[in-house]
């Protein structure tokens, strides 16, 4: 979208995509044609510039030349009148008084890209020009602002939506122009474009619209002692003004999501906005109905790449971390599930987006069973509070992994593997686990999945054995067959590492000393055992040539959680 320099009778400047709006609402009289990218105008001109019309014109010509532009025409100052772009549309649209508040509700807390503006227009049954006029009216009335999508630094560009400086530069007629690569997955932005953001003042006037005031019946969930304890701590911390971030470090299967519910409830009842974000779509689609059930008076909005954009206002939003880039200073409380999981872990763009979506002084809560070093360092520096939820909801300890030393390397395959002298010990251990219940055998690579399925089918002939990995076309069928008990042993890569609960399952991690397995994946894999109340125990065996540091730390983490759970009095008996 291009912007024009507009000027009023006192020589005050402004940048406007529709000069007619500035005339009708603010008495602007002249505009400089042609329009130019806002990024260019902001870089070269201050709005408080008191230069004469002619001087500004000359400056534009020089600036375009400096930027390597291929435009050679002379800019002209023109009167804003009936011949100006969209004048008639402005006269008509500005008369509609109720459109602005409606649009502000729909765009609350968002930063709208130009592409989203046309989607919004469609949703409202308006033309793109009408939406542009109303949005610019919001800007003129100081309820919003236009921001260039990318800002140009000395040698780099920086994306205003995702904060990334990883850009590709190409020539447009205005000179060097950039496309941001950081947030391309939700629609690439270029430096010729702008974002619309609401300003905070605007929000106070409209925020109460979707506030539910009705009395709420009692909560329909019951906490264990450990959960109540953690939930209470979370409430206390969120009231503290000193630190805005809290890490909830829970045992696998402790019911960490639920402990945020009382806090969510408190925020919602105060009319404050809450975001529940998770890195993966399946987690988001799984949590939304749960939240909707618990917070039935509120609409729980879902945002993910898999669903159409939802413009209805809502206090409680569930979103994938990528979608969070669409918000700006929007949420009072952000709850962030599985922070150490792909694609969020170590992704600076998503982390930046998360911070930008949170209001200044808003609270961020991280939930994880396996925190990253970065966040643990933050805790050590006291920039983030730590809450432990060490006991599982059923009140039994997390089974501690055992180690079985084998002499097998990951590159041994085929006949060599069948003849290997460690094979009988490995198969004996697996047979033993399979006697207790269904068994997941984790291996580090896809090739090893097929290799071990073959071997186990030969040796454990009485067992039903399947193998799967992330791009396996039959993955869904095999995993659901295993979950419903129609398969005894599933050999797989990390696909079942997280978020899976299978009644009575046992775990073996083959090649546990492999470099792909860090402490977090080992803890998560071990955390698959003993998750249900009906079967709270189980066994995990790490089969490895040596005891790596990751294996030691994983066992230490689980032992430490268990000790905390015992000393907190959260364990049965």
């Amino acid at each position, binding site marked *: 979208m291009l912007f024009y320099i507009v000027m009023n009778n006192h020589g005050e400047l402004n940048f406007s995509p529709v000069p007619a709006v500035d005339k009708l609402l603010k008495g602007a009289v002249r505009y400089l044609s042609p329009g130019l990218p806002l990024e260019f105008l902001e870089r070269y001109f201050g709005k408080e510039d008191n230069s004469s019309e002619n001087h500004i014109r000359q400056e534009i010509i020089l600036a375009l030349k400096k930027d*390597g532009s*291929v435009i*050679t*025409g002379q800019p002209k100052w023109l009167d804003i009148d009936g011949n100006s772009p969209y004048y008639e549309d402005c006269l008509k649209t500005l008369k509609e008084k109720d459109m602005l508040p409606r649009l502000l509700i729909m765009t609350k807390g968002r930063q709208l890209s*130009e*592409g989203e503006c046309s989607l919004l227009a469609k949703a409202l049954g308006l033309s793109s020009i009408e939406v542009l006029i109303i949005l610019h009216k919001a800007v003129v009335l100081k309820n919003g602002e236009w921001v260039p999508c990318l800002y140009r630094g000395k040698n780099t560009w920086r994306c205003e939506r995702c904060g990334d400086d990883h850009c*590709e530069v190409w020539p447009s*007629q205005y000179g060097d122009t950039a*496309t941001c690569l950081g947030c391309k997955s939700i*629609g690439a932005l270029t430096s010729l474009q702008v974002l619309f953001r609401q300003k905070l003042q605007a929000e106070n006037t409209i925020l109460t619209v979707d506030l539910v005031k009705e009395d709420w019946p009692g909560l329909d969930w019951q906490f264990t002692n450990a959960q109540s304890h953690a939930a209470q701590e979370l409430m206390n911390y969120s009231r503290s003004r000193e630190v805005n971030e809290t890490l909830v470090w829970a045992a696998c299967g402790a019911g960490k999501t639920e402990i945020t519910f009382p806090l969510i409830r408190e925020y919602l009842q105060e009319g404050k906005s809450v975001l529940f974000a998770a890195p993966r779509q399946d987690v988001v689609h799984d949590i939304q109905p749960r939240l909707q059930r618990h917070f039935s008076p509120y609409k729980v909005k879902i945002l993910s790449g898999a669903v159409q954009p939802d413009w209805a206002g809502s206090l409680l939003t569930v979103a994938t971390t990528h979608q969070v880039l669409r918000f700006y200073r929007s949420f009072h409380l952000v709850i962030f599930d599985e922070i150490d999981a792909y694609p969020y872990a170590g992704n600076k763009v998503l982390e930046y987006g998360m911070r930008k979506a949170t209001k200044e002084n808003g609270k961020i809560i991280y939930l994880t069973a396996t925190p990253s070093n970065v966040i643990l360092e933050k805790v050590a520096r006291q920039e983030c509070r730590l809450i432990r939820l060490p006991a599982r909801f059923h009140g039994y300890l997390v089974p501690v992994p055992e180690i079985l030393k084998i002499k097998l390397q990951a590159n041994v395959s085929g006949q060599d593997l069948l003849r290997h002298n460690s094979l009988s010990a490995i198969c004996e251990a697996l047979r033993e686990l399979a006697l207790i219940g269904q068994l997941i055998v984790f291996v580090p690579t896809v090739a090893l999945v097929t290799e071990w399925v073959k071997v186990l089918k030969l040796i454990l002939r009485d067992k039903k054995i399947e193998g799967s990995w992330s791009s396996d076309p039959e993955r869904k069928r095999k995993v659901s067959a295993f979950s419903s008990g129609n398969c005894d042993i599933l050999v797989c890569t990390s696909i079942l590492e997280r978020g899976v609960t299978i009644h009575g399952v046992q775990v073996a991690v083959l090649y546990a000393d492999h470099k792909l397995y860090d402490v977090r994946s080992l803890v998560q894999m071990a955390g698959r055992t003993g998750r249900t109340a009906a079967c709270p125990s189980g066994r995990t065996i790490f089969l490895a040539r040596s005891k790596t540091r990751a294996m030691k730390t994983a066992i230490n983490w689980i032992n430490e959680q268990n000790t905390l759970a015992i000393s907190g009095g959260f364990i049965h008996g």
Partner: protein
Amino acid sequence: MASIFFTKAKEITKLIWYEENDNCRLCGKKSIEAVCQSCREEYFRTELRRCVSCGKLTGNEFTHCQDCQAGKGPKGLSKVTAVGYYDGAWKEFIHNIKYKGQPYLLIALTDYLTSWAVKQLPPPDMIVPVPLHPNRLAQRGFNQAEVLASILGRNLGISVQDNLVRFEDTRPQISFGRYERINNIRNAFGLKPHANIAEKIIWLVDDVITTGATIDECARILRNNKAKAIYAFCLGAGKEGY
């Protein structure tokens, strides 16, 4: 800390021993040039004539393709040239630019595109890109024709003027047959106020020409406003059997 050190060290090493990207931009195979010889032979087909009216690659000895000889193609242009046959990897490359937000892919081809344009067309006074409707521009973030025009303009020192405007958000031409395309595009364009094109030689630039309905309509507007001569340049066009 160590990983940051190694990333930085790698970046610095790259700066010292400049690593040339030596893959063909179309097929990805090793190539010193931006487009490898075998892709050039397959898609650019420099030995084939381009139909003067619609830019189509033709194997015959005539100046016009069969469609244009039968009076079906665009009529308002002095000459049209297409860089290559709009098919396979070349088509995919153009789609990546257009639909996957990667205008920067064109930069690697700057020299080839410029030299093709100056070999085929006489020098212009200005380059005019075929405009996008504002709605589509908002979705895409850039107009691929304008990027192409800017690359040529910058390299040749010729002014680029987006003098045309698109009024109608027409349905993508891809969904129509020849006659529907012509009707779809009628009155979709106009000249911007204050544009001065009288007596000017113009290169009209677009990414792809299929039936030529779009450039013909743009050329009509330019001609009606007294342009002296209009030439068209595009990345891809069809090919006539021979």
